């Protein structure tokens, strides 16, 4: 580092403490602004992430493949033959999870009464990888892989039908041949889901039992693909559509649940608006402080210029003060904001005490929001505040360097 730069930094350091209270207030304003942006973007990012996580919780695939026409009328006869063999045919990214499901709508009946339900015929050993709520069995257990007549139900359905583990449950559906199909199952387990719709409506049976119930052979209705990066789902769906041809349709989660895409855009816009607002206020605060600090010392800068200080060095002197204010406040803000974001990414914040989830435009969002701790986002916000502080410092510096030394010396 050059002597001139070291000297400017040393002088800048002393100058910022000339008015200790003003400097501390300014740095606090910058730091608090940065904390706000970091924490709020972490919070909103956490909400968006939570909404995406509900894909797993709800058993919705990042990409889902159907026989074309099935989704229009939920006609169980429109099925994909030999879906299980497709896993090998699809070129999926590493780490992808795939599962085939048989789907039906029907009626669940117990001694207490009956409830309309969605029946999902699944592979017992594979489905918990696709539906996160099946990892939360609150009573009983996941049926064994070869358990054909076992059934998993949600807590709310169990309560409405007064069912306990071991109880009998009758499922009735419309078969592929339009006749009615029914069978008797035994409750093996009760799962917990934060989504009331899932806990009340979804019933999991073995794929074999679902096929038998519907009168299907080897067919499945839905191929679910879960990938590590949900943001890559649109591209994957497009690729799969090209590869599979017109008889099938591959849909990304954004197409299956457009509300989540809207939510993502919405939260992004809110964060941007807040960040812009906060940055604007912080920028004005710094500008005010720097202008006051520099302009009240115009005469002193005039003296320095009279002694032979070049305009560029005067600029450096002022920027050195901005540098220290920016460095201290950005470091403090980033550290505090980062710690808060990190802490609440573990502890979470319960926004709706007493409930586990709430509905937002049809999406189920957990009441306990965990902030997203993203070092990259923190670094980006910090860099923005840092650069902005330095840039704002240019204005008072340029005001000074434009003056002739005699003009500066005349200022009181």
């Amino acid at each position: 580092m050059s002597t001139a730069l070291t000297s400017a930094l040393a002088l800048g350091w002393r100058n910022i403490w000339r008015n200790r209270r003003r400097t501390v207030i300014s740095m606090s304003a910058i730091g608090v602004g940065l904390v706000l942006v970091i924490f709020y973007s972490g919070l909103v990012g956490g909400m968006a992430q939570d909404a995406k996580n509900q894909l797993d919780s709800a058993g919705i695939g990042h990409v889902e493949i159907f026989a074309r026409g099935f989704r229009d009328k939920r006609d169980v006869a429109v099925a994909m033959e030999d879906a299980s063999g497709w896993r090998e045919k699809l070129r999926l990214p590493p780490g992808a999870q795939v599962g085939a499901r048989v789907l039906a709508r029907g009626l669940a009946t117990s001694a207490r009464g009956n409830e309309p339900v969605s029946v999902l015929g699944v592979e017992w050993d594979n489905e918990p990888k696709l539906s996160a709520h099946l990892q939360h069995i609150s009573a009983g257990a996941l049926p064994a892989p070869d358990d054909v007549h076992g059934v998993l139900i949600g807590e709310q359905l169990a309560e409405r039908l007064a069912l306990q583990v071991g109880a009998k449950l009758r499922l009735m559906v419309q078969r592929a041949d339009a006749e009615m199909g029914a069978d008797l199952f035994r409750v093996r387990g009760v799962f917990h889901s934060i989504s009331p719709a899932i806990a009340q409506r979804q019933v999991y049976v073995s794929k074999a039992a679902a096929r038998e119930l519907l009168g299907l052979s080897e067919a499945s209705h839905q191929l679910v693909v879960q990938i590590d990066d949900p943001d890559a789902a649109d591209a994957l769906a497009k690729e799969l559509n090209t590869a599979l041809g017109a008889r099938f349709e591959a849909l990304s989660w954004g197409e299956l649940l457009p509300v989540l895409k809207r939510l993502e855009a919405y939260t992004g816009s809110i964060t941007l608006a807040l960040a812009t607002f906060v940055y604007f206020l912080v920028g004005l605060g710094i500008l005010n402080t720097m202008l006051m600090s520099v302009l009240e010392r115009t005469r002193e800068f005039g003296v320095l210029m009279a002694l032979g200080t070049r305009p560029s060095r005067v600029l450096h002197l002022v920027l050195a003060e901005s540098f220290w204010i920016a460095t201290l406040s950005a470091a403090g803000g980033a550290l505090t904001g980062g710690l808060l974001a990190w802490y609440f990414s573990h502890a979470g914040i319960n926004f709706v005490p007493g409930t586990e989830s709430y509905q937002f435009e049809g999406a189920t969002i957990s009441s306990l929001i965990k902030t997203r701790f993203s070092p990259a986002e923190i670094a980006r916000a910090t860099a923005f505040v840092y650069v902005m502080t330095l840039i704002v410092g240019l204005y008072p510096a340029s005001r000074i360097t434009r003056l002739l030394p005699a003009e500066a010396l005349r200022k009181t």
Partner: protein
Amino acid sequence: MPVIEVDNVTRVYAEKGQTPSHALRGVTLAVERGEFMAFAGPSGSGKTTLLNLIGGLDAPSSGEVRVDGVALSGLSRKALADLRRDRIGFVFQSYNLVPVLTAAENAGYVLELKGVSAKERRDKVKAIFERMGLSPFLDSRPLKMSGGQQQRVAVARAIVSQPAVVLADEPTANLDQATGAALMDLMRELNRERGITFIFSSHDPMVLERADRLVRLVDGLVVTDEKRAR
């Protein structure tokens, strides 16, 4: 060759919407190396303006100022700053030391601008401070010093880099009579010891009577220019 040449210089301040004010109306004079001279005149006579123009702190409306033969009008702001750093020392009425710097750092500031090492700066400042009776104040902050002490530090700052000329704008205005006289005597000694040219502006009789040459200004014009034998 004169160290300072002022050639038919005018300075008009034209504020927007106000009648132009003529601070200098065609001043011509030359200052020889080693002179100890003063500009005298009432307030508004143009003394400070003339010092500012000689020091390259301001630009004349017309005419030319030359320092050591260098015409200031042809210099960029950077070159003017370098010229002030290398050839001109300033002493201001209200000391104008930088409060966050110690007395030694203030005095060594110009040397720092010239790229002199910290050790050499300290040695030079120490020597000057000893000469000026400021040794106990090397590491004192200006605000902890009396007006007279601060003004002596300002003089040390002006002469430490051996400039050709020291311009002092009413250097005793904020000092009591005894302190002012002591300061003037000190500058006189430095003038004789080091051959530095001193140019003052003042209306303090104590300052004026010590000058070897007295240039009187009235309304931006030189009315008398008298040299005194010492």
